[in-house]
């Protein structure tokens, strides 16, 4: 079972990739998932996160099968 992780905009450029998969045995927080996937990159200040296309907190638990996204502040409009 795994969680699909997506990165957008400057975060994607910084990490050098747009997507990752993390195999999990149980729920993990968004913050923990970042740390496991990017152990050498501290979570950027102001980063936003979404679970299954809705905004979430970094402490929200993510389950296997969920889509988790990390992105910088939005700048549309």
């Amino acid at each position, binding site marked *: 079972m795994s969680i699909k992780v*997506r990165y*957008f*905009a*400057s975060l994607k*450029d910084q990490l050098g990739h747009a997507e990752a998969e993390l195999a999990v045995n149980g729920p993990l927080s968004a913050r923990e998932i970042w740390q496991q996937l990017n152990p050498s990159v501290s979570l950027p200040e102001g980063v936003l996160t*979404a679970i299954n*296309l*809705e*905004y979430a907190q970094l402490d929200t638990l993510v389950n296997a099968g969920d889509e988790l*996204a990390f*992105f*910088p*502040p*939005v*700048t*549309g*409009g």
Partner: protein
Amino acid sequence: MQIVISEERIDPWQTLSQYPAPAGYGATAIFIGTMRDFNQGDDVTAMFLEHYPGMTEKQLLNIVTAASQQWTFEDCLLIHRVGEVKPQDTLVIVAVWSKHRGDAFDASRFIMETLKHQAPFWKRETLVSGEIRWVERNSNGYSQ
């Protein structure tokens, strides 16, 4: 109600003229955002609008739904451009048709402000120098 993510150039007047106006409206408030060739002191020659397909549509629908719970309006059209854009291109259109003008003014502004802070779009600018940079943050349109 219509929410559109457009990869094509948008002609705002043609789009609005072709949109079927709802029955019974007396007020239409429209906001159009247009790409400028200047930002933060630098000449900008092009821009790329990245977005999060799926989440974008969902968030825009959330925003229009929230507006419809706060104000009474007959219809709303919301169009946002994505992909490669050039100066003078239309980036966003919000149009609200209502019976009373206060609702159209308030709802269109709310939708625009909330979109600016919640809809997952990101602007990457190409400067005249060739430098490419991500726009870092949107300003608050109420306090300007």
